[in-house]
Each structure stands twice: as C-alpha cells, then as structure tokens.
C-alpha cells in the first residue's frame, strides 16, 4: 500500500470540488494581474542598439520583423560559458517552438536573446533543433540597460550573489560545470522575459519579468505541479540530449 491517503471516488470528488474553488479564485486573481500588466505605462526606447542575428546586424525595431509586438526570452548563455546555455533555460527554450507559429499570427514576434557571440548561439540552436530566432546581445549595452545582465562591478556589489558565488550549494556547483563557466561569470546573466511594442516607428519597453517568477521556468513545471509526487526542491536541470540514463 502507498503511504498516501486512499479514498473512494466520492470522497475524492468532495476534496476535488473544494480545491476547484481555490483554483477558481486563483484564476480570478490572475485575471486581475493580467489587466494590470496591460495598464503599465510604455517607456520609449531612445538609445540605438544593434544586434548580431543569424541574418546579420539588426536594430531593435528590425527584430520585430514587421509585427507590432516583440516578446523575448533571455537565455542564460554568457560569453564565458564554454559548454552551452543554462540547462534550465534550455528546457524552457524547448517549449517555445510549439507556440511560435501561433503567437506570430497574433502580431507577436517571439525570439530569444543571449549575451554569448552569435556563432555560439547559432551552433547551440542547431544542436537543440530550435526554430525561433536567436539574437546575440554581445558587445551591446542592451542587457545591462534592461537588467538582463550584470557588469562585473555591479555583480560584486550584490551580497546575495557574492554569497552564492563564495559558498554555492551543490546543485549550483553542478550547474557551473554544466555550462562550463565559473559562477562569478555564469551568474551575471538574468533569466527574464522582456516585451516591447512598436508604433509609428518608435519602440517602447512594456514589461519585464525575471526569475524566480514561475513564468521563468520550463513549461513542464505546470505539469509537474499536478503530479502525485513532489520532485526535488532544487532547480536541477539537464539538456534533453544529456539526461543520465
């Protein structure tokens, strides 16, 4: 017999109905937050940025690819990572291609950013079999201006970060080995979603959300929240071609 409480279908249904109330309340709160997101002011982006893409240099406006909204996920893949992007971010990336064509038809261009040079991103994209456009912010101020990366100086000023680098938990040491970078370099990238609007030739920054928000997690977390057994509380992740057997 499992350790878990066993019940009849009727008992389960009663407990399920109670939970459904709470799920319904949570959905209402989410509606409220969605509305507030849409009410945030838009901030004009006045600085000019140029990015390396698979199709050559592009400005921020050009990344919209003719659409009026740009949504980007910033994958932790800094210039010092010798073995590829963060495995957790990579797992999130695996889910994006399934949504690409759908959001494209809602006037949204979906891309990913990383700070490693474009050659590294393109090779990694090929290895993972991804389709979404992958844009390099290498050698631009963009990630620093928008909170997607920390400069070395800034990183040293954050006590929590210094603590993690000086005394990392075991999973974080493993993570450092997975990406092939020292934590002092590796932890300078900030996994985030960032959104922009474009109207009459002006680009506006509209929204950013960063870890530990659950939206900055692989899609399968939504499924794992519904499985009977709790997984490890540690954010260990593997690339899909590197799972231990």
């Amino acid at each position, binding site marked *: 017999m*499992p350790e878990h409480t*066993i019940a009849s279908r009727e008992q389960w249904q009663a407990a399920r109905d109670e939970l459904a109330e709470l799920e319904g309340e949570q959905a209402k709160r989410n509606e409220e937050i969605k509305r507030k997101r849409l009410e945030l002011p*838009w901030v004009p982006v006045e600085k000019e940025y140029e990015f390396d893409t698979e199709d050559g240099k592009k400005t921020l406006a050009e990344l919209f690819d003719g659409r009026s909204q740009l949504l980007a996920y910033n994958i932790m893949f800094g210039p010092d990572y010798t073995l590829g992007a963060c495995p957790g971010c990579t797992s999130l990336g695996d889910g994006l291609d399934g949504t690409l*064509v759908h959001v494209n038809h809602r006037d949204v261009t979906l891309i990913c950013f990383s700070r490693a040079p474009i050659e590294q991103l393109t090779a990694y994209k090929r290895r993972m079999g991804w389709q979404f456009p992958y844009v390099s912010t290498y050698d631009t101020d963009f990630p620093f201006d928008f909170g997607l990366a920390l400069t070395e100086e800034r990183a040293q000023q954050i006590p929590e970060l210094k603590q993690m680098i000086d005394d990392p938990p075991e999973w974080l040491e493993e993570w450092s080995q997975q990406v092939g970078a020292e934590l002092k370099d590796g932890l300078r990238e900030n996994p985030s979603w960032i959104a922009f609007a474009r109207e009459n030739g002006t680009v506006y920054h509209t*929204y950013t959300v960063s870890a530990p928000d*659950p939206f900055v997690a692989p899609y399968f977390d939504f499924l794992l929240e519904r499985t009977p057994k709790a997984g490890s509380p540690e954010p260990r992740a593997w690339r*899909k071609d590197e799972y231990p057997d």
Partner: protein
Amino acid sequence: MTGHRIGTQEEWQAERDALLAQEKELTRRNDELAVKRRALPWVPVEKEYEFDTADGRKTLAELFDGRSQLLVYHFMFGPSYEAGCTVCSSIADTLDPQVVHLRARDATLICSSRAPLEKLLAYRERMGWSFNWASTAGNDFHRDLGLAHTEEELRPFLEGDIPPTVEQMAEASGTDVAGYVSEGPGLSVYALADGTVYRTYVSSARGLEPAMAYYGLLDRTPLGRHEEGEQTHWLRRHDEYDTA
C-alpha cells in the same frame, strides 16, 4: 503617437514594482495550491481499461511505461472527427517537446482520444508529434471521467444558441456540432504503486488554460490577448495558417 499611456523609466519602475508584489503573492498562492493538489486522496482505479496504442493493446498500468506517474491529456478527437480539435492540437504542439523532460522526472505523458487508433496515428504524423497516443475506442475511459457526452446529455446545449466559435471548431474537425462537443478536453493524472493504479488529479475546461502556452506568452505582451469582439477564433492548426 500611441493610444497607450507613455511614462518615464522611473514611473514604469514604480508601477512595475507594485505589480511585482502582486505577482509574487500569486506565486505564493500557486505553491500552496500545488501542495493542496498533492494532498488530495488517491482513488484506486478498479475498472480494467484496455487501450489501442502503436505498440499494441495496453492496460492503464502498462501505459506508465515503467515509471510511477502518468499524465494523460484527453485530446478531443471523437469517432466522428476527421481531424483532431484545433485547440487541442495547439496544446499538443507544446506538450510534445515536454515528454523527454518529464520522462527523466519519473512521469510519462501521453494523449488519449476516442477515435480509432489509425486516425490518431495518421494525424500525429501530419502534425509531426511523437508522444504516445492511446485510443480508447471500445472502453469508457473518457466517459467515466465525464469527458465524453451522449447526444441525449447534450440536448439542452444543442437546442440553445450555439456559439459561432463552436461551429467553427466543429467544421475545422470535419464533424457537426453534436459530434464535436461529444468530446471534452481534460488532464488526468495517475500514480502506480505496488501494481495498483490510483487516480490522483483530474482537471478539465478552464483548469486547462495553463496548457495553452501561447496564452501565457500573450498575457505578457503589450496588447495581451485582445480577443474581445472577435466572432471567430484566431487559432489554427500549425500547418493551416495563411502565410503572413
């Protein structure tokens, strides 16, 4: 100029920080919900179900494929459908790449539908998916979960005003409204312990919104979903959009 309110970086940051506090509260409550879901009692599945799969007939226990947790997405593809439901297809687009990640976390993710296996496999090939797709033809698996309805049960709905999107979706699946709504979408979750299968969680309809990953993305864009006033649904199968 845009119709939207324009602000300075400082104004944006102040409002963003206020919203972040609410987002964090939502996250905290979400974590509580996950704990409560796991506290639900388990119900032994006493009925014997047999499914048609690409690897032959399988029992529910066999669908776990050696793992201790099974997630089943109940994909709307009824016997009268010519093609799977458009919305379920868009969900499956995102579910498919998760299978490998879940497998490594002791969870098997599959889809099940009431149409015969040959139809499911042909459609799976068209859509380029690789998840295991079980046909429940000949068993009451969906029916027992309240995810399959008889025309008798549907009569009040069918005699009322049918929303245009339902007609649109029925037509897109090559069936009529009665045939289309005989199926319901759902997610059911099971644990396997000492040879017994337990049902642990079931969710349907509105509870499945997180499965529509594109909505999560649109909810973070400047314009949101902006679906109000649209008479037909914008969603298409991934190979049916007009090239834009």
